[in-house]
């Protein structure tokens, strides 16, 4: 095994500590921005579902605002978003570079996407179930928690795995603001110095990572589908 690595990944072996650090940076970015994005995205997703026409808290003003803001941010390519939100990043995180500097743009890039995912997941809950819960004297918050969320666990699990996968993709671009991570590692060495084995190793790690996330999502979805 050692011999195999030495033969086919000569450059990687030299930069192993760097490689490990990149992996950790990627993890750090995914976890930190992921948690916040999932919370915010869930919030906006549920706002979209309950405030839309016919929703349990119908409110077209709130709906239109959230809907349009999400559309605007989804329309901006992430690479542009990275530079666009730099001032916000600086005021919140104190810096616009490094892992800390990448968190805010990653959140801006992920929340709109996840909000839409949650919106579509929750929209699949049959209006009949909402009606049944209302007829049983459920409050709005009970309906949101016990019906909307509980009934769409499989769809939400899939939405989360898709979102995390897309987030992993975005972290690679975050390297552009010096955030580090696997993407940056691959560009710096694999591309700039033409050390192809570095690129290959990065790809392998990413493929494994993405596969695990997808697998977990599918597993949870399957376990909760009856």
């Amino acid at each position, binding site marked *: 095994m050692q011999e195999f690595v030495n033969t086919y990944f000569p450059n990687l072996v030299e930069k192993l500590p760097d490689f490990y650090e990149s992996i950790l940076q990627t993890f750090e970015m995914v976890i930190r921005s992921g948690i916040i994005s999932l919370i915010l995205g869930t919030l906006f997703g549920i706002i979209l579902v309950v405030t839309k026409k016919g929703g349990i808290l119908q409110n077209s003003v709130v709906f239109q605002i959230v809907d349009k803001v999400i559309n605007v941010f989804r329309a901006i390519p992430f690479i542009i978003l990275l530079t666009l939100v730099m001032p916000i990043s600086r005021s919140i995180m104190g810096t616009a570079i490094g892992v800390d500097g990448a968190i805010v743009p990653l959140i801006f890039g992920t929340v709109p996407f996840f909000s839409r995912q949650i919106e579509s997941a929750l929209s699949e809950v049959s209006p009949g179930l909402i009606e049944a819960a209302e007829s*049983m004297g459920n409050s709005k918050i009970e309906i949101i928690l016990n019906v909307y969320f509980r009934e769409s666990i499989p769809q939400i699990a899939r939405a989360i795995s898709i979102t995390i996968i897309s987030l992993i993709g975005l972290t690679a671009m975050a390297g552009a603001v010096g955030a580090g991570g696997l993407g940056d590692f691959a560009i710096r060495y694999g591309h700039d110095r033409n050390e192809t084995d570095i690129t290959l190793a990065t790809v392998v790690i990413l493929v494994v990572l993405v596969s695990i996330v997808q697998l977990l999502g599918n597993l949870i979805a399957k376990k909760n589908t009856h």
Partner: protein
Amino acid sequence: MITLKDINKKFESEGRTVEAVKNVNLQIKDGEVFGIIGYSGAGKSTLVRCINLLERPTSGEVFLDDVELTALKASELRKERKKIGMIFQQFNLFASRTIYQNVAYPLKHSGLSKAEKKKKVEELLELVGIADKAGNYPSQLSGGQKQRVAIARALANDPKILLCDEATSALDPQTTHAILKLLKELNKKLGITVVLITHEMDVIKEICDRVAVMEDGKVVEEGDVFTVFASSQQKITRKFVDTTSNLSKIHQLLEEHAEITNIKPGECIVKFKYLVRSASEPLVSTISRQFQIDVNIIFGNVELIGSEPIGGLVSILSGKPEDIENALNYLRDKNVGVEVILDARVR
């Protein structure tokens, strides 16, 4: 008792106003099975939702006993809603929960202990005859079984009223019959008031005490089922009644000049209808004996509503014209609806 006062419900859609319910006044008494029948789009689904305010009427008042539901705050209304169970055409069970969990769901904030809840759920499942499915998920059940679970769930908070929104429309005739039987049993056993809406007159005939007929958002006819069946005032009601009887077939036979309608001179085809609860008298043999006429029954349709026979006969009468006339008058005196459909009497 449910009292609906001047209920109106308008929907705005794409700039147009649709009046789904127009000026409906109804009283539904405790312990009765009350049916609301109408074609789709007649407003019956909206009307039934106005009872538990799933649809809030545009104007009008809804009372449950002395409580005006339409005047309650949201939190108070939620409490009152627990007194009104509801079941649906599509069952609306929670797919992510087992049968047991579905039935236990409304008991969440009931204040019962875990053991009490368990006992309650088991009793309910027993009551609707589905105790063996407690651990299954809804997707593993047939339509009829799902509706039983839905009924158990609707009964969890011991409601006084059970609203049934086309509860049997997605079921086959046999299952429909079984579910209706169950509803009637629950009505008798628990004294629960049942309000059901349907587009099938058979459902009304099978279990309802009183019925309201809806057309175009209005209640056009209302009364006890026997009276409505026997002497419908409205065209639409007669249409519904006809769907459960074959008496109207005679008109079709006449149009087609069927063999059976070729009567000889001196004969006539008559349709008799029982208008009041009197079918226990041997009317046919009485008239043929007393007036010396022959009564040839072509076809008939007599069935029971509650324990009262209802329906009628289509017959060919032959005999002397004055005897036939006297016989018909005798029947009219007995409150039998007499309609001479084809007359070849020699005068």
